[in-house]
């Protein structure tokens, strides 16, 4: 009796001659017609105020983190920064929905989720600073390296979740992608593997309307990206990605369903990239300000304040505490990033293999000799 004996408990074995009906009922897999919302709906009152306050706090800190990182690029302290400004609800909810033993598989835009999970910004941003590929310990932090090749991290999440399940450990893998990433073959293969293996994985697609300059209409003709789920035999969920409460609810449900053996889920979060793709991008070439303005009105922080201040869940004290925490983080980032990193040229050769090959030993020696010679000249 193995885990895989019931890798997808609901499907009947293949088709029979003259079969009628699909192998399983597609209805429960289809997303609701409208994205889930909690803020400003009856569901808001049913949501734990402490959770709402925690989400708000993280949003405010997250926004400040995005602003500070962007500033650091202007000062040449970061090589490049892809801001998640406007998408903070997705980022912080993802961090909050996971337990310590769970794994996060972020894409290159998700450093906020990594920081919100507890990784120091200095470590989370080495890739974008240019000092190291990965600045944190993925095993200690249960956080995979930031994935730049789009959607390639998705099958890793499936494999890790599957391995944990094989070992009988209740670990969930959450992977984050963009709308553009859903077009890659790896996205498709990962979802199919997850469904077939019934692996405890959650796929969070942040549909922020653009893949750099390419709008969603040139990326997909689907009714929604969440509708892709039925084609794999997993549930698809559509949620307002700027409603932090809704994001947390949908993610937590999917994460705990996966943990309890319920299999994978695909979530499409509707959000918007209010900044340019990165500080190096010029968004005026491909979109109207009016569109941006409309979305700024639907800002995740504004939405919380709009609906939770009247309800008394957010008060001046919380606003002030959050602002102070945000400033403290920004100050720490400024200080930490203005120090020049100390790098070891020999690190080029360590960690290519478990042991240096004879060829790498020769090359390491060559570089050492060159640097010694340079030093002499300078002296």
């Amino acid at each position, binding site marked *: 009796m193995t885990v895989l004996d019931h890798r997808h408990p609901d499907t009947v074995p293949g088709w029979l001659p003259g079969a009628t009906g699909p192998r399983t009922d597609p209805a429960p897999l289809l997303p609701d017609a409208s994205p889930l919302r909690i803020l400003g709906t009856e569901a808001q009152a049913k949501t734990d105020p402490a959770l709402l306050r925690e989400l708000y706090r993280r949003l405010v800190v997250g926004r400040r983190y995005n602003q500070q990182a962007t500033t650091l690029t202007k000062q040449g302290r970061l090589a490049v920064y892809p801001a998640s400004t406007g998408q903070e609800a997705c980022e912080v909810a993802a961090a909050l929905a996971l337990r310590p033993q769970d794994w996060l598989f972020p894409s290159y835009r998700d450093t906020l989720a990594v920081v919100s999970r507890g990784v120091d910004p200095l470590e989370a941003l080495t890739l974008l600073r240019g000092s190291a590929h990965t600045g944190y310990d993925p095993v200690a932090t249960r956080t995979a390296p930031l994935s730049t090749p789009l959607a390639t991290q998705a099958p890793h999440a499936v494999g890790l979740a599957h391995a944990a399940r094989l070992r009988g450990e209740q670990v969930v893998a959450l992977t984050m992608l963009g709308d553009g990433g859903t077009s*890659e073959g790896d996205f498709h293969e990962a979802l199919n593997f997850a469904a077939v293996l019934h692996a405890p994985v959650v796929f969070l697609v942040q549909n922020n309307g653009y893949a*750099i*300059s390419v709008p969603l209409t040139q990326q997909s003709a689907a009714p929604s990206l969440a509708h892709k789920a039925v084609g794999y035999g997993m549930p698809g969920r559509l949620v307002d990605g700027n409603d932090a409460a809704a994001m947390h609810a949908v993610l937590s449900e999917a994460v705990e369903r996966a943990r309890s053996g319920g299999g994978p889920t695909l979530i499409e979060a509707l959000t918007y990239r209010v900044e340019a793709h990165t500080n190096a991008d010029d968004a005026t070439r491909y979109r109207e300000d009016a569109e941006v303005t409309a979305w700024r009105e639907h800002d995740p922080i504004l939405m919380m304040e709009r609906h939770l201040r009247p309800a008394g869940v957010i008060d001046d004290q919380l606003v002030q505490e959050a602002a102070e925490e945000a400033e403290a983080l920004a100050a720490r980032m400024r200080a930490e990033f203005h120090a020049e990193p100390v790098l070891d040229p020999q690190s080029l050769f360590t960690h290519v293999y478990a042991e240096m090959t004879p060829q790498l030993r020769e090359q390491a020696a060559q570089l050492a000799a060159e640097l010694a010679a340079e030093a002499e000249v300078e002296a």
Partner: protein
Amino acid sequence: MTTAVSTRTSTMAQALNSALRDEMRADPTVHVLGEDVGALGGVFRITDGLTAEFGEDRCLNTPLAEAGILGTAIGMAMYGLRPVVEMQFDAFAYPAMEQLVSHVAKMRNRTAGKLPLPITIRIPYGGGIGGVEHHSDSSEAYYAQTPGLHVVTPATVEDAYGLLRASIASDDPVIFLEPKRLYWGKAEWDPSVAVPPVGRAALRRDGRSAVLITYGPSLPVCLEAAEAAKAEGWDLAVLDLRTLVPFDDETVARVVRSVGRAVVVHESTGFGGVGAEIAARVTERCFHHLAAPVLRVTGFDIPYPPPMLEHHHLPGVDRILDAVARLQWEDGR
């Protein structure tokens, strides 16, 4: 073909953009497709203004999927179009490897010539621009070893224009490798000069001591090294291959025989790199003219390092001169 007459001064990026525009004007079957090639003009602006001038049908923003882009281009070529594909960065061409190796490179052969694929695949490649991981790969050896592909890489603004036009006009599939770090270098060039043929190397500097054989991103550093070598009493020639496949054995062998010493320089990793092929075939052809083994100066055999360390990885003037010094000069220069 419509071409301007007077010379102009522009960056390599602008010259590449002109080449695309001029080919699209000259040949209605030329179509550009790729990620962000539309309104944005590509992340390097090489396709700037093409959608505006030729419309979306001629310059198409595709979904984000490289195998799909190349596979779609194959189908378009099967119907008589001449697609020019932009891969956004070197490492992001890897998802298209199967379409490239199993179809693009082989379609003409597997159909006995009935289905040639005149596709040009533009790939910004190489490092030296402070790019984060996966944005600085030198992937030329993967392509150079795949029969059925031509592999072209310009090192000057004028060649960027001429070789891209020649590549698009070619009836064979061409991997067109654009050295990212040379994109923004300006030079005066003449768009009206004859388009150089694919497959011919260019002697950029004559010399009698030894020859530096290089291509693409490493040409400027080789010219710098040759300049600096004068102080050491070495008169170095610099040979720019321009095309890796088909390889210009004739020119390379002629130059090497005349000087008797050669160093191959490229920034991609050394082991199994194109430099190995160059050294091997030069030695096969010029063995008894060689006073010393053909040496190689290349990137180390490591994954491309983070930006703050890349200068240690990339061949520089000193590393090149160190190699020249090892060319066993005892028997005189």
